[in-house]
């Protein structure tokens, strides 16, 4: 990564910069990075009322952007500026919520300025999880349809789905719902015309170029490929949340005959998802 000096209000790369038009929006440093050979505009601070701000690193789904989001998240949580309430990392931005009555906003912005100057992307926290999945049949009612859409056999879809490494970009929508990137484009499938009002917890699903694991019974417009007994979220378990943003997930096809034993282990509070070496 090459570093350039910050020139307030005058981006040397002439990137669209809103700080030129709005006093409340500013650049945090001026930076030129080439994660995938492209230009990543410098992070911007977007105001979210008096109690929050969003540091936006870009507007696309990109592992390099996400890595920077997570790096900054860790720094902000460690530095814990006065009045910090919590942080919400997403695909491409970090929302920082604080108590406006005690937080020095200018000092917070200065801290973000400073900390993003030499921000090292955090590509992964080093945890990779292997999640067992029973594919197809009653476990994944859309497997055959997805195969048909792409002119593949169900086994090919399983092979493609289970040989990718997925990155958890963010957790949101519901407690523990993982937004996974890394789905092979060969099986990317636009969402169902008729969403389902309820799919069971543990559903392994794909929607567009995204993949996910249902943490609880939930409504969904995605396609169900299989089912895992693993519970990403279990309020009575320690840890309550199994996965964190930045973790990686690989799916392991398992035979239906193993379902009962795995489910029993989950009920006993075991994670069943296994931490493996990348």
């Amino acid at each position, binding site marked *: 990564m090459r570093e350039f000096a910050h020139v307030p209000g005058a981006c040397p790369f002439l990137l669209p910069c809103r700080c030129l038009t709005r006093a409340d929006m500013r650049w945090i440093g001026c930076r030129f990075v080439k994660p995938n050979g492209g230009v990543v505009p410098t992070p911007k601070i977007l105001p979210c009322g008096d*109690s929050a701000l969003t540091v936006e690193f870009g*507007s*696309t789904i990109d592992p390099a952007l996400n890595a920077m989001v997570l790096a900054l998240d860790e720094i902000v949580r460690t530095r814990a500026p006065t009045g910090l309430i919590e942080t919400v990392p997403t695909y*491409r931005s970090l929302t920082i919520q604080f108590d406006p009555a005690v937080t020095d906003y200018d000092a917070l912005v200065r801290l973000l300025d400073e900390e993003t100057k030499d921000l090292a992307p955090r590509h992964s926290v080093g945890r990779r999880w292997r999640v067992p999945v029973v594919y197809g049949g009653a476990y994944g009612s859309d497997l055959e349809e997805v195969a048909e859409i792409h002119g593949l056999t169900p086994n090919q879809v399983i092979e493609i789905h289970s040989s990718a490494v997925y990155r958890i970009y963010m*957790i949101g929508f519901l407690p523990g719902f993982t937004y996974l990137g890394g789905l092979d484009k060969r099986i990317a499938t636009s969402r169902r015309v008729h969403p389902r009002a309820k799919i069971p917890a543990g559903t392994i699903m794909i929607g567009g170029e995204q993949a996910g694991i249902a943490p*609880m019974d939930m409504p969904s417009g995605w396609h169900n490929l299989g089912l895992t007994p693993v519970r990403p979220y279990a309020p009575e378990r320690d840890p309550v949340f199994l996965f964190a943003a930045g973790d990686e997930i690989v799916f392991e096809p398992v035979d239906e005959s193993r379902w009962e034993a795995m489910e029993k282990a989950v009920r006993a509070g075991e994670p069943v998802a296994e931490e493996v070496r990348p």
Partner: protein
Amino acid sequence: MIDLVVKSCGPMTALQDRGRIGYQGFGVSPSGAMDRRALAMANTLVGNPPDMAAIEFVNLGGSFTAEGGDLRLAVAGAGVSASIDGTPVPLLTSFMLREGQTLDVGHPRTGTFAYLSVAGGLAVEPQLGSLSFHLRSRLGGLKGAPLKAGNHLPCRLEAQAGEPMQLTVDVVEETGPLRVMLGPQDDYFTPESIQLFLESEFTISPQADRMGFQLTGPKLEHAKGFNIVSDGIVDGHIQVPGSGQPIVLMRDRQTAGGYPKIATVISADLARFAQMRSGTKVRFRTVERDEAVAAARQLKDWIASLPSKLTPVRFDLTTEHLLSRNLIGGTVDALSSASHE
């Protein structure tokens, strides 16, 4: 232990406190009381910290009894009234519910949300650090559920001794347009749309709940589409989906979303907005950060000052006195809940 027993209540009656802090990064909505001023008043009346969990009423009241002893209670918010075995309790006054008596909490009158606090709070196990009920996550409340007839809420025996207190608050409510700060995605809208947003009157639609209030009004045009890659959401964000009709996101909102957000209601105006009912007309005006922060500090100071505004109730509950208390209470209440523009 003394139990507060639910005899009847509305379907959305549930426990709410400050909210569930620290889990939004794991997809858990903060939830929490919609009107933190009213929660603070009910709690202060019974000597609790202002953010402690209380029963939140949504549109409908309820009735309760005490089992195993007497309970010291208070209600506040949206002009809500209470009566014990048919005798009205003066507004903004704590009271004892004796074993065997029935407490009737009326429907919130001037708004949507009202609170019933018990001295010492409720001895219910929090989930992820909070008792706040969140419907979609099935978290908080009573094991992830709202209240229903027959529920027993354990209360702390040792906290029930104490005198009835009354609260005399002299807050003058803002009645002007709701104050907003533009952003985070105001650049997704045409300048004309932003002007339209700031100059038009919007109506709170019947689709208004703890997740968000749908507004109807002139269509706000997007300048560059209405899909963004999901980013973080905060209370008061005003998101505008493809319909061009804004939605103000409230405490049960999701943690992230994919619609551009034109502006954010400042934190000090959220409770006032929460108490506005469907059909209420609203306008918005932008403020600078300084004004928003000053308003947030003012609200915080006001909540912190509530205990100093308590005075013991030392009188026989004669009809005359009840009436005078009601008059004072009524005035105060109209000021503190003003839900009409």
